[in-house]
């Protein structure tokens, strides 16, 4: 079994920044694992600009933003494994990696989970009707169009006005497709105002608020949707050949759940990026991930000092005296991003003190996935 001080799972913006900052902070044995063939994560499929405004003071597109970090990683002596997935992360910090080069068992003193998020599938909504082809999530459509170079349809309905949905709507119009409408159940746009203006209004894409898709038609390829007005219940049959959904992103942290084995998140496991909570801006992800990288470093060094080099997690239980107090405080610092406009709400259910954000469904963001986080609102 190969041992590392820190293993970073996920080679997107969060994982790359966390790995680089841990390296800078003095950790020598770091492994960065990425399941795709190249580093960069979702940035690779984001051909639009708007990245790097705060971090680099420059407007970049996704691949450009990623390239700056990839270059740094190539210049460093970080161990990087691409085309490799972590298929298991056990409560004792052991993990199993699967890649074309083989199966490996690896143990780390600290693990940074930067596995991003996934898109909420349409099956989670009470949309009735058939299940034909031609239904895509926004990120999936973006990847197929931008990286695959595929033409996925020409008369398009977009369900949900999340940022990815609006960006894809604009992309489709630029490719000469007809975007019939972006459909949003709330009274206002779900994504950033900037995207509403730059992606929809500038291209004349209609935004139908207080509406939803109530039924899907077509047995082979989608042929139409029924759009329901949520104010008056009226339904309209709209022919289309493609439905793209942008109905929410869900942090992908099943590995953390596996490691937690029903209990709190182990103290050697750190989450960052969209695996922690879904961010609006990649610049924020980078800032936070850098801090998480430094905190993981502190953890490794501290445990090393107090245990004379023995593995951390075999000795430390979460919430025990060693980390209470300063660990608590540091965590708050990590997540206390000055640019964030939401309240400073934290979950005090465990030493991770996750920063929470208020959503329509209540407080979200506890990295252990607990449904009702113990909310504590603090002043700076």
């Amino acid at each position, binding site marked *: 079994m190969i041992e590392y001080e820190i293993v970073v799972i996920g080679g997107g913006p969060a994982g790359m920044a966390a790995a680089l900052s841990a390296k800078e902070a003095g950790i020598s044995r770091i492994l960065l694992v990425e399941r795709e063939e190249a580093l960069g994560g979702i940035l690779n499929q984001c051909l639009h600009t708007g990245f790097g405004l705060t971090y680099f003071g420059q407007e970049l597109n996704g691949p450009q933003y990623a390239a700056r970090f990839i270059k740094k990683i190539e210049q460093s002596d970080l161990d990087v494994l691409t085309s490799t997935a972590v298929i298991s992360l056990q409560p004792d910090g052991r993990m199993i990696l699967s890649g074309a080069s083989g199966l490996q068992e690896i143990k780390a003193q600290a693990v940074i989970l930067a596995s991003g998020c996934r898109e909420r599938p349409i099956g989670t909504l009470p949309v009735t009707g058939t299940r034909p082809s031609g239904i895509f999530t926004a990120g999936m459509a973006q990847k197929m169009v931008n990286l695959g170079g*595929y*033409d996925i349809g020409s008369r398009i309905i977009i369900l949900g006005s999340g940022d990815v949905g609006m960006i894809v709507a604009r992309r489709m119009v630029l490719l000469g497709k007809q975007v019939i409408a972006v459909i949003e159940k709330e009274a206002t746009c779900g994504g950033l105002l900037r995207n509403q203006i730059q992606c929809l209004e500038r291209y004349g894409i209609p935004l139908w608020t207080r509406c939803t898709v109530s039924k899907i038609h077509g047995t082979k390829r989608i042929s139409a949707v029924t759009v329901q007005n949520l104010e008056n219940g009226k339904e309209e049959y709209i022919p289309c050949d493609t439905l793209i959904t942008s109905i929410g992103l869900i942090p992908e942290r099943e590995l953390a759940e596996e490691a937690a084995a029903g209990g709190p998140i182990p103290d050697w496991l750190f989450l960052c990026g969209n695996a922690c909570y879904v961010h609006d801006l990649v610049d924020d992800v980078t800032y936070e991930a850098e801090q998480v990288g430094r905190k993981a470093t502190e953890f490794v060094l501290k445990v090393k000092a107090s245990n004379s080099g023995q593995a951390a997690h075999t000795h430390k239980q979460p919430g025990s005296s060693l980390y209470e107090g300063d660990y608590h405080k540091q965590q708050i610092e990590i997540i206390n991003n000055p640019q964030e406009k939401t309240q400073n709400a934290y979950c005090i259910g465990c030493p991770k003190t996750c920063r929470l954000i208020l959503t329509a469904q209540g407080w979200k963001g506890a990295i252990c996935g607990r449904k009702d986080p113990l909310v504590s609102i603090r002043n700076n």
Partner: protein
Amino acid sequence: MNRYDVIVIGGGLLGCFAARNLTRYKLKIALLERREDLCTGISRANTAIVYSGYDMKPGTLKAKMCVQAAQGFGELCAELGVRYSPCGSVMVCFGPRGAKILRQKYEQGIENGVQGIRLLNPQEVLELEPNLNPRVVLGLYAPEAGTVIPWELGIAAAENALQNGADILLNSEVTDITPLENGFKVSCGSQTFWTRGIINCAGLAADEILEKVSSPKIRIFPSGGDYLVLDTKAGGYIRHVIFHEPEQKGKGLTLVPTVEGNILLGPSEVPIEDKDSFATSSEGLAEIKALVSEVIPSLPLEHVIRSFGAIRPNPYWVHLDPLSGRYVPEDKGINSFTILESSPGPFLSLIGIKTPGLTCANELGKYVANKMAEALGDVVPNPAFNPKRPAPLRLNDLPLAQRARLVEENPLYGKIVCRCRKITEGEIVDSIRRKPGAVTIDGVKRRTGSGTGRCQGSFCTQRIIEILARELGCSPAEICKDGKGSYVIRNMNNSSSGKKATRND
């Protein structure tokens, strides 16, 4: 050439098992399926339950077959290399009407010879299923029930039939059947086959097939059912198949802890008109949710990842209405297994086989195969028949060391494609290369489970299309989700160049 002893029409579960059991005899057999793959109709969407056999009226063929089938189901699955979860079932009720029915079913079960069946008091029920509504008044436990993946079972039977010499002809829709002196001429478009006997397992179209040679006696009137699938995160929430016997008339809730660790919820029952429409209805889905709050109120419905619609083939005796000139159903539907022998023969039809058709698939297959052999007369057993079908590799089920060895031999077994289910490229390639192999995204899904996890294919679909195209030697634009016309990619190239997007944005 194109001459067979027996042609089986329809490649659903029943057709696959009819073909498999026919290969126990020295016969030249063909299975004709109109679609590009097997198990795409009723077999693809149902409750996935192996019933223990207490629901059926004692003395009927259905009761006898079901009890026998349930007892041998583990063995059948082992033979065919199919995953089976012998989890047992608990039927529960919340009032006197249900309790009365449960007691009747218990008596019926004893009479039918269902083993291990017993009535449970509320405390015993809650010990088995702690998350159930504590207001439960009575339970009926049946250890021999279980759950299986219907299409996995059907495809395994078809592979086994193929191994034992049957021809499986896909994309072969029967357009015409002509009785001849000693058999039939069967046309599939421009292709013609001659056969001595026919077994009609055409599912929802079984009546239409039969009517190509005889006048209508039975027609199928489909009804739909809606189902919800919960993520594996909710998987441990129940341990047994749970049947709910409601106090009001109507269909109760059924909960199934699936082989792959999900929970399947359903079904509601709604009448439908279109035999090709696997649609869900808002009434059906709402009904399921209302029932959940009664039966298992804390079930984490936030873990729903998919809803789907199923079709049930309800057979009715019909008569010609002289006024309208149309065939109209008799009052009551047919509840027993209907195996029609029509003349000219031998022509056997399995019509409107509903629950427990999945449980009894092999038994029904055996039954019609034996009947056919008898009717043909001069038939001898096939000494080379091998009931065992080599199971496909499922890496998640293997010990780590074995898994590592496989990756060393074939690196594709290391490449995870479906991240939710952790399905590797090697397993996907296998599913395409097996005979009969997957040719669509749903075909890969049915064989490997890819795309059935919590992201519902949003990460892996493109990759699977590309692997299918590579393996089948075609363009990704030719790969369909589920049969002709269900394309995912319209064209290979975007209609305008990509440079616009990077600049103008």
